[in-house]
């Protein structure tokens, strides 16, 4: 049978199937995470230490916060490849704001506004000028990285002593604030995606933009909002990055967009839009982060780590697709 047929049978077909196949996706990811834990606990020194678990959380925050917004964007049928440069740019911009003596909380707010404004450029280009989001965000990717490097000459922008910024990097009862913020934002996004008109509209737009428009959903506005939100989330990541590094760095977060998209896709969200879940992305973020952490602990040659990462992303998506298919087949009877 052709795959086209196969693909087609997944979305259509039996009622109540949606529940199970979504299940299958998340179950298979959960199994993968357990397997990774077992493997790394037995082979990698220090993997299970409290400290390392916290490190994993902290690393997960970098990918996760951006990935929540990216999930919505991908569900809506768009893509955002500008995350990495956006995070770096915001960390630089924020560092300058702080250098200019703007009060820290105000500077944070400004950073988030800047992020949202920059993100909405791509959104406006997509929504009102039909520029594909891949092109718009690719332009941002290049322009933001370039601007950040140009402004700083690739030198870190020091912010000196700043208690509020430092606080953001100081663990609360052992848990780093970045991880807490990530989890709070996860809850917010999971809620928004399932319980608000905005969230459901995103699914509708991804599933059939024309039908969504004719149902009275303000497609253009939601598209702009999605990219503004993505920009704002990148700004939050940028703030946390600044607090972790103690300086604004134009070269930071390089390749983050790949990790973010990989996490979303591994989490079972379809690049073609209309389908996906926050929980899947959470698990996807964990898979990506665990692999990164475990391979470093194992002392694997860093170049070889890239090979392993590439393979694992493909295998994860492959297994996921097969699991969904099998789940669909089983519910046949």
């Amino acid at each position, binding site marked *: *049978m*052709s795959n086209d*047929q196969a693909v087609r*049978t997944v*979305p*259509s*077909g*039996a*009622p*109540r*199937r*949606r529940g199970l196949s979504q299940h299958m996706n998340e179950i298979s990811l959960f199994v993968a995470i357990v397997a990774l834990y077992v493997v790394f606990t037995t082979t990698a020194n220090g993997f299970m230490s409290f400290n390392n678990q916290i490190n994993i959380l902290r690393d997960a925050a970098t990918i996760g916060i951006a990935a929540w917004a990216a999930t919505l964007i991908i569900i809506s049928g768009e893509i955002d490849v500008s995350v990495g440069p956006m995070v770096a740019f915001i960390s630089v911009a924020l560092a300058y704001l702080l250098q200019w003596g703007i009060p820290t909380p105000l500077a944070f707010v400004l950073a988030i506004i800047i992020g949202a404004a920059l993100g909405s450029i791509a959104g406006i280009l997509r929504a009102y000028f039909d520029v594909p989001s891949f092109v718009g965000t690719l332009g941002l990717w290049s322009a933001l990285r370039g601007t950040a490097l140009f402004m700083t000459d690739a030198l870190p922008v020091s912010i000196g002593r700043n208690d509020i910024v430092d606080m953001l990097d100081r663990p609360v009862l052992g848990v780093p604030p970045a991880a807490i913020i990530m989890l709070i934002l996860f809850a917010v996004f999971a809620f928004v995606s*399932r*319980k*608000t*008109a905005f969230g*459901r*509209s995103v*699914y*509708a737009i991804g*599933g*059939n933009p*024309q*039908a*969504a*428009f*004719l*149902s*009275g*959903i*303000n497609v253009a506005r939601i598209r702009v909002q999605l990219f503004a939100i993505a920009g704002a989330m990148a700004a939050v990541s940028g703030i946390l990055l600044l607090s972790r590094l103690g300086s604004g760095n134009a070269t930071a977060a390089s390749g983050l967009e790949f990790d973010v998209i990989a996490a979303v896709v591994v989490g079972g969200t379809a690049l073609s839009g*209309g*389908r996906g879940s926050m929980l899947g992305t959470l698990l996807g973020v964990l898979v990506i982060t665990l692999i990164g952490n475990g391979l470093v602990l194992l002392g694997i040659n860093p170049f070889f780590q890239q090979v392993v990462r590439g393979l694992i992303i493909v295998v994860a998506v492959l297994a996921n697709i097969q699991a969904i298919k099998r789940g*669909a*087949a089983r*519910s*046949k009877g």
Partner: protein
Amino acid sequence: MTQSANARQSHPVDGAIAALEGCTKRYPGVLALDNASFRVAPGEVRALLGKNGAGKSTLIRMLTGAEVPDSGTVSIDGVALSGSGSARAQEAFVRGVRVVYQELSLVPGMSIAENLFLGRWPRRAGVLDYTGMEAEARDAMQRLGLDMPPSDPVAGLSPAERQLVEIARVLLGKPKLVILDEPTSSLAAAEAEKVMAAVKRIAADGIAVIYISHRMNEIRQIARSATVMRDGRIIDTVDVAGADTREIVRLMLGSEAAQAAAVETKARDKVVLDISGLALAPKLASVSFQLRQGEVLGIAGLLGAGRTELLQAIMGVRAYDRGTICVDGIDIRRPGYRAMLDRGFGYTPESRKEEGIVPLLGVDENTVATDFAAVSRRGILSARRIAEATRDVIARLHVKTAATDTPIGTLSGGNQQKVVIGRWVHAGSRVLLLDEPTRGVDVEAKAQIYTIIRQLAAEGRSVIFVSSEIEELPLVCDRVLVLREGRLMEEFTSPNIDQDAVMAACIAGH
């Protein structure tokens, strides 16, 4: 007749060009084909009847090799199909099976000629022979009375023209079995006539034809026998001439159908929508009419008359050149789509699949998308309210669905259409613009949709009902206007809506 007799001789055994033996096909959760056996002889026009989801298209996909049955055999021209994937389809094609699928299967970006020969482009020394291809394409199209240049892209054609191109495609080469899956569902009466004339010609050449349609009058015109399907099973094959429509419908439904009554109209005065001098080049020259509260206004016209454009212009999804649109007596100037929704308008597009539904989402979300606020509390969607609102619509519009959150893509066309109308009921719209709401919908669902529309009108809503099936206009409309040459030419008022007169008005001057 001599021709078909000759053809018959070349098929010994039992004279069947195509045969299904005990075929079963299961899709996740559905038994789409249940131990079905079916055969069709050369020169025969066989109608295939059944409700939405009865398994007609599935049976077709068996014959064309597009799908492999779970059990049973499919033989074409006396030889069983083997293989799978595109090889199987190729096998069936080589044996002479041609098909017009229900879903449009054209590639919009390619030219008409290329689409006609899709995947089987004529080649000369490995290089595509465009000249020969376009010449042949022009011939094939002329047979259907089409005169667009074959090098035009399909993207520029109207849905109806696309359908005709698909039909032209099956006439190419040397077909032995031509299958038409609802070929006229997007055509108005006059074009449907063209298709039926073509079908008759094909059959006269000794080619077997399988013809699927929900329009009984077409079937009576061209088919001698009809196979009725229900729930994936073949129920019976009847002689069309000998069976009356009620009997056939009873076989299809497994029960007696509710008969749609003709409309009793009463005088109405409050004008909710007043259009005057609406122009939109090149289709609409000057359109003026009034829509009153509680009225169902039918708009008839030929293919390409501009009915869709008219509705789209009113709704603000398409810019128009001139004219005024007054809602409740207020000139609204340039309407915007969402502003029109806010004024209590609702619009269902003519292509349900492309523009109507979000297939992956449930019936519930496809319903409440028009008004999330009504099912929210303090900006948060309430699962209970969504379910209630959906159940409400399901009950009022008799939607057949397993649950409120069943993905709408899995429902039959008729039920999808009811949800698409139902979402405006949920939104509380008082003026509904329905573009071909019964397209591809089975008899039972059609009757239900008529009832629904009448009920909505009785509640004081106004409806504009665009349809290419003239026979249904008297069943729903208080008034019918005929759109021709960019103007509303004639008006018929219930109970004096005469099918033949409407038809004549549509084609006058042609």
